[in-house]
Every structure is written in C-alpha cells, then in structure tokens.
C-alpha cells in the first residue's frame, strides 16, 4: 500500500536537548573501528583548537533518531518497516560537533515519490545549536514494492 502523501511537509522537533557526550563519541568511534585521537583524547582535540573530543563526520546519524522515527512510525503514514532499506544519505557539516555540545534538531518529510515499483521517502534533518546551523542530514529511504499499481 502506498505511503500517505498527505504527510509530505510534516516536521517534528526534538523534544529534549540532544547532549553530545564523550562516552557516546568514544563508543561510536570504537564501533566504526576508528582510533583517531581527536575522537578519543580531549587534550589532543584541544591542541587542535576544539572545545573537546570531536565527533566523527557521520556521528549525528545516531541522534537523528531523536526526531525521525516519530514521523516514520506514525501509523497514518502507512510505512511498513520490514520493506524499508536505506537508499541515500548525505551530510552537510557547518560546524564541528564536540563532546559537551547541546543540539536541537528538526526532521521533516521533504518528499515522497515513486521510483518504479518502489517509493522514495526523503527526509531532511537540521541540527542547530542555540539557533545556529550545525549540520544538515538528508536521508532517502526506499519502501520496496509499495508504489501505487505495483503488485
């Protein structure tokens, strides 16, 4: 069944501040097998001019979930998660993200469109810090076989 396109343009803001911690960054760096000292050693990061340990470039995906799932799990959207795969991901990083940062985010459903038998759901998440842009994430998920007329 096709995704409900009346949801295009809907947006959700993070309900609580998103606190970036050293532990979260350390755990993420370990999970991607990256021992860069700027992720792990606050002194090394400060020597490079950062406030504290730096987050790896794709780290914010782990907190994009603060807003995205609420939009996608709304039953009225009609998305079946077992049919979903990740199609595209983009990061535009305006400012470094460091441990101790407190961010806000807003995710919106930018578009839903057919691609053959599939549907593409395009999400945009904007991270800000005290109102200033920090990062923009674009995320396209593929809903397999749900386009109108697909059997």
């Amino acid at each position, binding site marked *: 069944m096709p995704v409900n396109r009346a949801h295009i343009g809907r947006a959700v803001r993070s309900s609580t501040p998103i606190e970036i911690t050293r532990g*979260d960054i350390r*755990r*993420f760096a*370990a*999970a*991607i*097998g*990256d021992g*860069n000292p*700027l*992720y792990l050693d606050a002194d090394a990061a400060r020597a*490079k001019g*950062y406030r504290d340990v*730096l987050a*790896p*470039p*794709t780290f914010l*995906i*782990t907190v994009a*979930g603060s807003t995205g799932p609420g939009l996608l799990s709304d039953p009225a959207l009609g998305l079946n*998660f*077992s*049919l979903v*795969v*990740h*199609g*595209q*991901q*983009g*990061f*535009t*990083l305006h400012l*470094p993200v460091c441990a101790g940062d407190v961010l806000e985010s807003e995710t919106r459903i930018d578009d839903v469109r057919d691609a053959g038998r599939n549907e593409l759901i395009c999400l945009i998440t904007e991270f800000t810090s005290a109102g200033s842009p920090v990062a923009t994430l*674009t995320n396209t998920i593929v809903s397999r076989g749900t386009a109108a007329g697909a059997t």
Partner: protein
Amino acid sequence: MPTYDETDVGTELPEREFSITRLDLVRYAGASGDFNVIHWNERIARSVGLPDVIAHGMLTMATAARLVTDWVGDPAALETYDVRFSRPVVVPDDDLGATLVVSGRVVEKLGRGRVCIDLSASVAGAGVLTGARAIVRLSDGQG
C-alpha cells in the same frame, strides 16, 4: 597532510581494505541505536529476501569516510559527504566477514581550499556505494 596547492585533480587516495564482521555489526548496532533485525538476525534477513545478514549502510558509509579523514588529518575538514547505497554488504557468519575495499580520487578543485573527492567502495569486486562524494577543506600551504 595534503595542502590545496599540492593537490591536483587526479590525486589518488590510496586504496584500503576494511573487514566487517558480525561482531562489528553488533557493536555498531549498540553504538548507533539501529537494531534493525536484518543486521543481526539471519532467519529474518532471509525471510525478507536478503541472502544473509547485511551491514548497516551507515557503517559502510562511516568506514569509507575514514579514507578521507585519515588522508586529510582533521576529520572536521570534511564539509559534505553523500552516498547512495547501491548494493547491500552481506556479512557471512564466519571470522573473516566481508572485506570492504575503498579508494578515492580528487575530481575537482573548488577554490577556497576545497577539493571534491569521489570514493568507490566494493565487496568482492561489486560496488556497494554509488555517487559517494566528499568535499574537504585543505590548508592552503601558507598555514
């Protein structure tokens, strides 16, 4: 560390291999909060038509980024990074897992110290990312 002046269109980022095992998927699931069952449950992965458990696309994306961040030195020099996931990375239940081969090449000098890098990532000769592209900021050589 590469400088803008010394970097030309065609400059290669040396190819590297990264292994991705089942343990890596479990660890990434925990660190990222992405517990989608297709990344750890073979029974369910097969039931939805996948050949086996597959890696998180975001783990592949993060791993490929290391080619760029290790080359440039300062990870915060990465300004944009985009990929499309063209093929799943299947991770067998053995000690070797999947071997991700990543290479990169400078394709454009954008001015103001920025260069555009195209990445390619493959497993067993088959590409797993398309349109993988990063823009990084290099020092200008004058500090």
